[in-house]
């Protein structure tokens, strides 16, 4: 397992402090501004399209077990299900992990209840397909084609199956919105989907959609943390590029080394 050295521990402490400081200042009622993210606005558009066409939405929370990207995907699922419940549109959620399946089912049930439509919740719409990556992909392909989904939302961590899902969605004419922290799959989603949420925009989704102060504060804290990282990178570039500094202060460079 990796362990922190002193510079990493200090940097981590600074980043944690900034994020927590902004969260608590937002909770005290400070107004915060976040920029518009077109991909997240498109989620409402995708739900509207499915409602107009009278066809279901497919929401895939990725193929990882319950980890951070999947948790983020599940918080987006809640938002999607709440709006879909309001309009009476079905949301089919195929899952690749049994733990994620149980939580997704509870979230969906809760979302229908909170919108006052508990009778609309159909347990068959939350499906556990398989733990196997490609068995899951073929299950999703089956749902996309058989159910004639109007919109396909893919949020979470994806691997090689990303292109199979996105290209099939494109072929069946579904409006597709994808968001993933998996950097290797971003090009595939950009190519095949109508909107793609990349990088840290993925983690901004729940704040953007809910406008909840804790999440907004966290988002602003993330921006401050990124600014700190940029300063650290620039410092590293300067120190590594000036021979005089390296010669007289060799310990400076060790601040940026792994050990």
């Amino acid at each position: 397992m990796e362990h922190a050295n002193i510079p990493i521990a200090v940097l981590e402490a600074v980043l944690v402090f900034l994020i927590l400081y902004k969260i608590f200042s937002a909770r005290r009622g400070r107004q915060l501004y976040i920029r518009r993210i077109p991909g997240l606005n498109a989620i409402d558009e995708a739900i509207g399209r499915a409602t107009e066409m009278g066809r279901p939405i497919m929401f895939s929370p990725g193929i990882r077990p319950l980890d951070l990207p999947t948790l983020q995907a599940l918080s987006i699922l809640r938002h999607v299900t709440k709006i879909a419940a309001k309009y009476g549109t079905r949301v089919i959620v195929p899952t690749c992990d049994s733990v994620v399946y149980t939580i997704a089912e509870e979230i969906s049930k809760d979302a229908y209840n909170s919108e006052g439509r508990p009778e609309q919740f159909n347990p068959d719409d939350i499906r556990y397909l398989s733990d196997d990556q490609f068995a899951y992909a073929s299950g999703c392909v089956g749902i996309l084609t058989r159910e004639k989904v109007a919109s396909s939302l893919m949020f979470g961590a994806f691997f090689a199956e990303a292109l199979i899902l996105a290209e099939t969605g494109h072929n069946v004419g579904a409006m597709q919105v994808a968001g993933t922290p998996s950097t290797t799959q971003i090009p595939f989603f950009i190519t095949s989907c109508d909107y793609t949420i990349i990088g840290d925009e993925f983690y901004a989704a729940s704040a953007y959609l809910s406008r909840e102060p804790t999440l907004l504060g966290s988002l602003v804290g993330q921006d401050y943390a990124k600014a700190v990282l940029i300063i650290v990178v620039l410092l590293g570039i300067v120190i590594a590029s000036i021979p005089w500094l390296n010669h007289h202060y060799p310990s400076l460079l060790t601040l940026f080394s792994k050990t």
Partner: protein
Amino acid sequence: MFTQWLVKPGAPQYLWVLAVLGDFLILGGALFFLLRMVPSRFRKTLVAIVTFGAGLIYSVEFFVPVPAGKDGNFLTNFAQKTVTDVVLVLSTFALGLGIYSLLRFHGRNLTRMRPGWHNSLALYVAFFAMLLTGFWSMMSKAPAAANTFDVLFRGTVAAPGATMFSIIAFYIVSAAYRAFRIRSAEATLMLAAAFVVMLGSVPIGEYLTSGLPVTGFWSNFRMENVNLWILKEPNMAAWRGISFGVEIGALAMALRTWLSLERGSFFEREL
């Protein structure tokens, strides 16, 4: 834990399986009952305490320095083995629910003869065939048992998986065709970069610029070096930029989850 009290070493394997299942039911039932006994106003606090405690193990393990000459600190073994085992046990509980969901959905398809019911029948046949041959190969030493399981696994699990994986090659072509259409300045730039990278990765690309010197200034314009430069410099810079954002986002989310600040994101009702 209790299994070793119930079953003596050397007992038949089916007894071990039954004892483990019994363990699960007894311990799981007791845990569930205890949780239901906790008044609802304390349940949130209980969940927050357990979450914080579990997260603390990994945080402390990461920050406490490793003694010289050792692979980990005093918590490494506990975090890697014991906590991982606990997570595995919890996941196993949920696996049963997942299988139940799968069988319930396809069972309804079968009993109501919905369109595509034959697919559901295939699932049932495959599920029980794999389950029974799996147990058979586990409990019997007969070569037929292992062979049957192997044939079923290779023929009905591995082969379709490989087929699905190979389909990606065709999807890449159709996706690339759409991506490389010249619609804007950015798309043109991407097309040019992709063309150079593809050409630099095949022998004909190297052949085209083989007349340029191997060292010195002009060697930078050899196709394989241009390819390497695109991948290692502009591509890597963009990739790292995205990764920084992703990791900071993950850190923020981990903090919110660890400190139970994120509860409203998942459920409306109280626990």
